[in-house]
């Protein structure tokens, strides 16, 4: 059973970190984009959506070029003693990147659905912009954001290509569940592979069911 639990625990750790980072980053970018009145907005949006359509191996390659020891940021990180290649933190970066558009898009749609009049009403009642965000915009967008975060969690849990490229396949250190499945199949261990496939599928189904249940259609008390 250890053959499953170790990579499962690692996968969950990586996916939770990736989701947490995306909740902050994706929500911040989405809020900025939803308020930004410029033609460049859709261009930026397209670039931010790239991780959704590019092959994960391509993303992994970019990450290696940027974060590898001889990479642009990698050399700088190396001097600070931070190593991302072949570490679980590298897997977090890969999962974060791949799942980012899911949170960003859901959050942007949720922010754009918030009635601007409610935000004005909060300003009239004396609130500063930051307070308007935390007391009106964010709570009203919370369900959409949560749904996006659950999708991102499921996506991060299943991340394979980019993770393999940057974090590798070191059992017990960087071997996540989806990478372990590949390794198990390669070595002919069909029983372990089957079990891990079942566990991954079940986890993703639960995340998707939760996401569907939280989808905006079910927002019952959103409009007076």
């Amino acid at each position, binding site marked *: 059973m250890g053959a499953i639990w170790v990579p499962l625990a690692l996968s969950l750790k990586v996916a939770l970190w990736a989701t947490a980072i995306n909740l902050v980053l994706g929500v911040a970018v989405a809020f900025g984009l939803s308020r930004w009145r410029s033609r460049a907005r859709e261009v930026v949006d397209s670039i931010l959506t790239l991780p959704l359509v590019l092959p994960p191996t391509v993303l992994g390659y970019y990450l290696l070029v940027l974060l590898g020891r001889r990479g642009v940021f990698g050399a700088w990180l190396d001097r600070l003693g931070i190593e991302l290649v072949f570490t679980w933190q590298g897997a977090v970066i890969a999962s974060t990147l791949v799942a980012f558009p899911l949170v960003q898009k859901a959050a942007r749609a949720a922010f754009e659905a918030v009635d601007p009049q409610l935000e*004005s009403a909060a*300003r*009239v*009642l*004396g609130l*500063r912009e930051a307070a308007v965000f935390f*007391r009106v915009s964010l*709570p009203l967008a919370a369900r959409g954001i949560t749904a996006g975060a659950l999708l991102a969690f499921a996506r991060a849990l299943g991340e394979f290509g980019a993770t393999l490229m940057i974090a590798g396949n070191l059992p017990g250190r960087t071997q996540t569940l989806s990478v372990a499945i590949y390794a198990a199949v390669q070595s002919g261990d069909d029983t372990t592979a089957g079990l891990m496939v079942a566990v991954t599928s079940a986890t993703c189904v639960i995340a998707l069911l939760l996401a569907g249940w939280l989808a905006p259609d079910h927002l019952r*008390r959103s409009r*007076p």
Partner: protein
Amino acid sequence: MSVDIAVCKTLRSDDRHFELEVAIVSQHRRVVLFGPSGSGKSLTLRAVAGLLTPDSGHVRIDGRVLYDSVARVDLPTRMRGVAYVYQDYALFPHLTVAQNIGFGLDRGWLNPRRRQRDERVHHWIDSFELGNVADSYPSRISGGQRQRVALARALATEPRIVVLDEPFAALDPALRGRMRAELLALQARLDLQLMVITHDPADVDALDGHTFEIRDGRVVHVG
């Protein structure tokens, strides 16, 4: 006690060009802007509240300058002391009636707690007879109650002036008369400075204030 407003604003969109040039000077405690929809009444109110920046003009309430294009004064909305009551009330759907009323009392990053209530919130809940819906969400209460909540929420911040955008339009006719009387009684009791916009001549009669008739962005009649 006075309202002194002059607002010039040109709005352009692809197919529309609208010029607003409104001057309102009054010593009356009830100022009424009367006119058809699209005449510029709401734009004027938005300029008073700081939700719209005029091209030029001034907004002075009781001698306090909120906006002056010459003197380059433009107070942010939150510092104007103008309470804005929206036509559809704009109650926060994620907050209870009590939380809505207490919304402007604490201006920090957190909404009022559901159970803890400020003395002032109690006061407004009692005076608007909202006790039995205090823990309800806005979607669960009646139109008249919603208007009372919107008024209570606005008054709790102790504004210098209350502006109301078509306050009775969203109500059914039977309720309309009662809410007019309620608003008038409240105005008299608290000596509120009101500025009301309406397209309904019956509102103009009932409010019996200083009426400015607005058409196509201009004041055409003062009565």
